[in-house]
């Protein structure tokens, strides 16, 4: 799907969103409220109603997305979600009449802007990261790389079988302790500062320099195998990093949109509660 949703149907929803914004701006410029422009004028209520309706409808996308219809339809929904969501920046800002404060109302506005901002990062992520992931794996699948790592582990153990116990324990640690990814921070960083394979590689290379003559060949072979494994691990960790970056925005976008929903309900309730 990637960026297809942006150009969907000849930018139909970009046009709809632009039309909506232009009409809102024109009305705002034309309207001279009896007092200051604010959310309580007729235009303010109108823009607020449209904005609230849009927010609920945009959140409905989360439900709609799970009912896997045809891709074309889903793409249309996503296209509308993106463009109409972006139009909220204009509509909701005009609704405020540029009146902000330390209150629930501005909290709702701020949450909405953060949700939209995270959505923009999502668009960037969808456009950028799948491509980077393919480049990173060099046309291999993640499973291919996992199998290559497994094969390298087997070879390492074989080559190490006649080598001193110290070397074997490093190899075993590399086989049994190396992990890809981990905590959220670890996944996003794309590195593992405590990687058993990196440790084994460093130590074995060090030991190879002073190894006994009969172990020399196998030690050098082992260094090469560990280096290859480290390269594969780097690729996989980058893969995990890119995947995490592509997913992480949703962990802001979705929960914050629910916080926004609560703030929006509170906002509407409060202005009529204290009419």
């Amino acid at each position, binding site marked *: 799907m990637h960026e297809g949703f942006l150009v969907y149907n000849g930018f139909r929803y970009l046009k709809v969103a632009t039309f909506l914004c232009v009409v809102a701006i024109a009305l705002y410029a034309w309207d001279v409220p009896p007092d200051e422009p604010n959310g309580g004028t007729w235009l303010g209520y109108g823009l607020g109603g449209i904005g609230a309706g849009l927010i609920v409808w945009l959140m409905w996308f989360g439900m709609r997305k799970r009912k896997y219809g045809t891709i074309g339809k889903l793409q249309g929904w996503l296209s509308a979600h993106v463009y109409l969501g972006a139009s909220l920046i204009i509509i909701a800002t005009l609704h405020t009449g540029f009146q902000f404060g330390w209150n629930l109302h501005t909290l709702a506005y701020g949450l909405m802007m953060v949700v939209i901002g995270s959505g923009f990062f999502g668009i960037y992520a969808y456009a950028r990261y799948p491509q980077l992931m393919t480049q990173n794996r060099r046309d291999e699948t993640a499973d291919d790389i996992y199998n290559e790592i497994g094969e390298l582990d087997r070879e390492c153990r074989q080559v190490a079988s006649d080598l001193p116990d110290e070397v074997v324990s490093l190899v075993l640690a590399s086989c049994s302790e190396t992990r890809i990814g981990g905590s959220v921070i670890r996944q996003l960083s794309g590195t593992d500062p405590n990687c058993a394979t990196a440790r084994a590689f460093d130590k074995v290379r060090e030991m190879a320099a002073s190894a006994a003559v009969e172990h020399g060949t196998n030690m050098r072979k082992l260094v090469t195998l560990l280096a290859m494994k480290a390269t594969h691990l780097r690729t996989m960790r980058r893969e995990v990093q890119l995947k995490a970056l592509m997913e992480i925005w949703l962990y802001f976008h*979705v929960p914050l949109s629910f916080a926004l929903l609560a703030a929006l309900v509170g906002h509407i309730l409060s202005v009529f509660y204290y009419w």
Partner: protein
Amino acid sequence: MELRIAFLTRRAKGGVSTKEEAVSADLIRVGRGTENEVYLPDPRVHLHMAVLRSTPDGLFMEAIGTGPLRLNGNVVRNARVAVGDTIGVGPYDICVVDPPEDKDVAITVELTQPMGDDVKELKERSRTSLATAGMSKRAWAWLLFLVVAIGFIGLPIGTRFMHSDDNTGGPLSVAHKEQISFDIAWKSGEMMDAHKFFADDCAACHVKPFEMTTNQACAVCHADEPHHADPVKFPRADLVQARCADCHKDHQGPTPLKIENQTLCADCHRDLKSGSPSTTLENASDFGSDHPEFKPTVSTDPSKNVWTRISLADNPKEVSDLKFPHKTHLDPKRMRRPDGKSATLECASCHVEEPGGGLMVKIDMETHCSDCHRLTFDKLAPDRVVSHGKPKQVVLELREYYAARALEGGVPEKTAPAVVRRRPGTKLTEPQRKEALGWAKEKWDWAARYIFSASQCGSCHMLIKDGPIEDWTVKPVRVTARWQPLSFFSHDSHHEMNCVDCHEASTSVSSADVLLPKIDSCRDCHSGGNSTSMVPSTCIMCHEFHTPGQPPMVKLKETAQK
């Protein structure tokens, strides 16, 4: 020592295959190294891990190096082993079994913990998605939703309900000030400065939930604010049902906010008669294009205290009973002081603003006129003047003056009788005294007629010469202090202009002229509230919604009930 080693391999389908080896050695070595008698080719086994030694006391095992050795599950370094014991070496179990007849010792070797699937284990160890790293959109969504819902909906409504018993209304309710109310998070904007002292008490104005703020809530403090028009005479819905908050919206910053948009007035005043047929007011909807000519209130019959509103278009004449030609007074050629020197007057010589710039200080004869208009009555006493403003006292003052002069003597007047001109201090006989007072009466009678002549009092006032001379007087002056009592005008904000730019005083020869500028004069600079090229002037720039003298906006009885 003769040793039989049986390597056991369990088949996937069940059953065990055995590969036997016979070893003859004094010392049986166990390890990964190929030189070991018991060769265990697994990387988890050290090169040299243990030795088995046969002694007369039995079979002993001994650990070599640091590799852990287990006997029946317990880690040991050295131990005696017997048939039935299991020695654990890395992933292998070595069991001591009954030896065949030709052997001293027999053991079975089995790899009980084969190497796992590297790929599977690596995948199990690795957490490669945010979901497996403990992130949950659903959990965060619920958490944030609940935090906002509780903090910004639950707590405000909850504390409002908790305090609802204390809500006696009004900003001075002490109970409110001491309570924490979370509904301040709902405050939509800064309160005006005058309301800030109860800004944290929403219920002071928002008395009932889901009900617009009521006039009664405002009237707790603003009880006496007069209505726009008498709602009994003009029972228009938009007048009777008008809410304070229609025009006065708070939460819009520190400055008191009243809606100044002229549309609000023009909605009714554009066509006033259609809604209020009994009105005498003319329509007005825009100062620049739809506003009647000014109609000053002028005195038309001072004797009956009649004041009439007359449009400037109808050239109103004010009957003030004062004679005053502005033109003469502003003409330097005609202005002479009593000593003959020329005097130049300007507007500000007489007209001075009151503090605030709204009205002018009242003009006063003693302050503004008496320098030139001296109430003298006798050439021989040029500094002697009578009091102004008290006609009856004038005759008394003249009588007292001339009687005193006659009785004192020493009057330098050549035509006066000798008794009056005698040396002062000499005693008078009764006939002389009568003669002197007779002269005095002639003098004060003459002086009074002079004072009440057209050249003195009569130069400014209308004279009433009814009855004896002691009763002569002047008509009281009724100069208008405020032409348009229901509108504002500030001279202060027009300081940069000259008086004559608006007031045509330099050509006015009669005090009956109403020197108020016509609306067109204002329109040189001012236009309607929506003007962009002139001074935008809305209705309430000059007029007030709350008309003085009208009944109060909110009935006091209703206020008391609240």
